[in-house]
């Protein structure tokens, strides 16, 4: 284990995720569906490298996302804290050292986060019904963010495992797992 190195990778990854959200995400939106690099990164790290500070990490990045946009401040922060914690716990139980399980957990977590965020948006004044919110935002956003997470997960797993990701399969077994 090389904790300082891993910390640097995670913090560096967070900075990159925020920059991508500002610089790249608006330009690769499809039909107004803007990808959420921050969500993909937080959920990936929650599954790959859960720590005591995961909620703080999710809170800070979620808050940054809220402040960069025009929606209710705190909504994404709340959803990321809640969902990253739940994903971390679920994965700890379900981990079977295959690539499938972390991906499944991340995709489901993304879906839950998007649904929760949609409910926040409806409650805080975006005048849309739940069906519209689900069909036109939550579902396509889940798909887009899942694709990002599918790219982000192996990349982060490889970086955090120091290049041993392929040999270890899911890349999780050689890391500190919080149970």
């Amino acid at each position, binding site marked *: 284990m090389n904790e300082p190195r891993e*910390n640097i990778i995670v913090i560096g990854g967070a900075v990159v995720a925020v920059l991508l959200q500002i610089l790249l995400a608006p330009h690769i939106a499809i*039909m107004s*569906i803007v990808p*959420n690099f921050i969500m993909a990164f937080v959920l990936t790290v929650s599954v790959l490298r859960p720590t005591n500070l995961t909620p703080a990490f999710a809170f800070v990045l979620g808050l940054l996302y809220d402040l960069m946009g*025009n929606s209710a401040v705190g909504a994404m922060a*709340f959803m990321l804290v809640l969902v990253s914690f739940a994903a971390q716990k679920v994965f700890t139980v379900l981990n079977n050292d295959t690539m499938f399980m972390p991906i499944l957990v991340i995709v489901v977590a993304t879906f839950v986060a998007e649904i929760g965020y949609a409910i926040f948006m409806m409650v*805080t*004044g975006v005048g849309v019904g739940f069906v519209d919110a689900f069909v036109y935002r939550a579902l396509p956003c889940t798909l887009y963010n899942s694709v990002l997470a599918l790219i982000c997960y192996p990349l982060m797993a490889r970086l955090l495992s120091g290049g041993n990701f392929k040999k270890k399969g899911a890349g999780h077994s050689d890391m*500190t797992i919080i149970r």
Partner: protein
Amino acid sequence: MPFNLQNNSPTSTKRVLLAIFLVIPLIMVTLYAREGEGGPLHSVQNAVGGVIAPVQFVGSQAGAATETVGNAVTDATADAETLSQLRERNAELTNLVAQTEEYKQEVERLQELLNFKQAYNLEGIGAHIIGRSTDAWNQTITIDVGSSDGVATGLTVMDASGVVGQIIETTPGTSRVRLLTDPQSGAAALIQSNRAEGVVRGSLDGLLYLENIDADVEVEVGDLVLTSGLGGSYTRGLLIGQVVKIEGNVGDAARRIVVSPNSVVHATEEVIVVADATDSTSSANEDSSEG
């Protein structure tokens, strides 16, 4: 000493931390929903928007520059292979032509804007779009003029083909515009042919819906929809779009009228912030009397 993020604290500490990080955002959401536009959370959000706007601008410029550099590298590689000065010169000229074409297109777009401004007798401030929304729930753009240029919240923003949206936030150097297609947008509107008044609203599916039109008013596909100026939220008499679909018949209270926006914002680079509403009102009246 490097900080340790690993699990070495009791479960109760973890639970307390989790609870804190769940409660704080909930309090923030509640405050945000209750406070006005000038509240502290809105102000912080506005300030952050002002900070990231130049970054977004640099990002969009960097994207264009990267493309140019990529082309230049390709050309340079070919030159190295052939060692031909003629080809180098050719590459330079090609770049020059591309640059000139870019300037030409910008001049044409600005000319269109100018013509539009003159046609409507608008007093306005020209602006470049320097950023777009970073999330899926808000359809906004950021422009490079702000309160120091005289831009204020509530002003109408247009491009050469019609209404784009409305200023919702300003910093000294930038402003954020909520697009008409955003579900939180609503513009008082009228149908040019029969002067029936209603409200045009955006939606998540990207269409505009004309609502609150009397059930007995006859509406036809192709009718032009303009801002009515009621309530003062948008400048009167500006083109929003045209009716493209009517779901339901005359007399049907649940009739839905779909309006296609005239302006295609994702293809727009320059806009006008309309500062003076007076002249466009008279222009709209002239238009209607001619019609």
